[in-house]
């Protein structure tokens, strides 16, 4: 049987597309997106090459030395790495239970309308500039901590090494608290989405077996969304690690390592913010840039993990 010839439009030639404008449009938009790649590569390369002095002089000791002495030109990042990790962990210890709790309430309990309004408000929290958090923390959180919070902790839990020593208000505890507030929005909005994506079968099956609402939520819904929740935690962690202004304003900026949460300290970002503009000497500058590189690497690893986890659950991935 003879098949009827179906007329197929010939693909337009390169020249045709060029005159038609398609190739030009492609070239323009391609250039724009390629420039992002270029800038990012340049960023890494510049951080790497500009910190060469410090890398040559201190090598890997930079990461484990606890001296930060611009006068003697001795630089070690350990106090800052310690401060960065400690404040971030402290923040998550507070914000994860509260944030996940709120996400559970918003997705499982609250009527849809209330849930939408509340998450709208929470997203506004994310839009508040960090310098504003810092401003508020200086004039509210720190006096409160100094006069009530820290003495209270000292009197009740003072036998622990975390709650000893002089109480200034500024320090790790203040930084951890303000970071907790700043990581709420990430944890709540992403966990809520992950929980809402859990199929209803999951809830109904548990309820049908006689589980209470809480048991269904905790044993059937939350485990189903655990990767998304974990992703939100990592995203919050990345934010907490890189956060600069609010922390700089409340942490006291002293490169010390102390078990006490009342002690003033510093973080990587805070020390860069504080010292960079006034840094004199090439090694000093190179050390600060190397700190920046360390922070950069730390956050991209954490961010990468977070994106993978969120991608694995919601399939929407990075559009947060």
């Amino acid at each position, binding site marked *: 049987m003879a098949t009827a010839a179906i007329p197929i439009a010939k693909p337009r030639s390169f020249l045709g597309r060029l005159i*038609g404008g*398609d190739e030009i449009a492609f070239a323009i938009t391609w250039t*724009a997106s390629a420039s992002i790649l270029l800038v990012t590569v340049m960023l890494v390369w510049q951080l790497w090459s500009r910190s060469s002095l410090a890398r040559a002089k201190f090598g890997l000791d930079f990461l484990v030395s606890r001296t930060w002495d611009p006068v003697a030109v001795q630089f070690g990042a350990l106090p800052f790495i310690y401060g960065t990790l400690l404040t971030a962990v402290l923040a998550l210890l507070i914000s994860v239970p509260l944030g996940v709790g*709120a996400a559970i309430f918003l997705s499982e309990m*609250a009527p849809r309308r209330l849930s939408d309004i509340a998450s709208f408000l929470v997203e506004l929290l994310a*839009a508040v500039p*960090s310098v504003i958090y810092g401003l508020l923390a*200086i004039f509210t959180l720190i006096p409160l901590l100094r006069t009530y919070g820290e003495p209270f902790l000292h009197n009740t839990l003072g036998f622990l090494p975390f709650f000893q020593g002089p109480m200034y208000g500024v320090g790790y505890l203040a930084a951890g608290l303000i970071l907790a507030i700043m990581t709420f929005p990430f944890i709540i909005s992403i966990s809520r989405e992950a929980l809402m994506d859990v199929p209803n079968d999951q809830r109904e099956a548990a309820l049908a077996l006689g589980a209470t609402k809480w048991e269904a939520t905790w044993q059937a819904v939350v485990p189903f969304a655990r990767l998304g929740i974990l992703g939100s935690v990592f995203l919050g962690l990345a934010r907490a690690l*890189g956060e600069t202004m609010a922390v700089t304003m409340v942490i006291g900026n002293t490169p010390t390592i102390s078990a006490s949460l009342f002690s003033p300290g510093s973080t990587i970002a805070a020390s860069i913010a504080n010292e960079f503009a006034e840094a004199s000497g090439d090694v000093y500058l190179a050390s600060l840039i190397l700190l920046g590189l360390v922070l950069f690497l730390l956050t991209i690893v954490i961010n990468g993990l977070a994106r993978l986890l969120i991608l694995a659950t919601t399939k929407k991935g990075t559009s947060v």
Partner: protein
Amino acid sequence: MDARTRRRYAVNSLMLGLTGVCTFLTVSILFLILGYLVYNGGKALDWDFFTKLPLPPGEPGGGMANAIVGSIKVIFLASLIGIPIGFLGGVYLSEFGGTAFPHVIRYTADLLNGVPSIVIGIFAWIVVVVPMGHFSAWAGGFALSLMLIPITLRSTEQFMRSVPQSLREGALSLGASKWRTVVTVVIPASLSGVLTGMILGVARIAGETAPLLFTCLNNQFWSSGFNEPTASLPVMIYNHAIAPYEDYHRQAWAAGLVLLSMVLVSNIAARLVLSRGTARR
């Protein structure tokens, strides 16, 4: 009802109640922030704030007119660089992308988006401040544009992707070329979303302080053009808040109120427009 069931019910109400408490705590923080800032900022805000220069420490009065103008300048520069690049990049990802390269770009954009803002500041210092030899609005604008590009890119892509494929096919079947389809059909169809994304991006960078600390630096006086150290509201808030002067704190509250109002108003407006747009669809 036996003891075990009673306990289960008790745990049920307790835990569900606790989640409610969590929500209340987290949401109420927003109102505490707003309330306290409006209270203190409202007390401190006067007409001088918008019209006068900052005074030396110790002298009461003065304002932050130069910082308001400086912020506008820096944001203008950042938008000038960041919005076109981000937008065109987003168009590429959504309309012209091939197979492998868009993934690389998307990944890079997310990477750049996650870079701590202080590191962006260092980078801008290296590539703009050092070659120029001085701090400038250009450097600050460049730093902020690096934060704006990935935000604009991803939101543009997202909204253009949500335009139904049938619209594109309709235009193509009428003989329109690819770029004509994009310009006359896809962009208009996604315009409200794309613009919203841009507004949200600009609102986000408007409050950024860390990238400006050693790119724009600060300035107690007017800066002419884009080539001098430039005052900006966020950096002013930072400097005034950590200074030990009563009147500086007053100014910091006023500046905080102005900055937060700008950011929140644009956020709320953008989100309202967006939610109305999606409801219609």
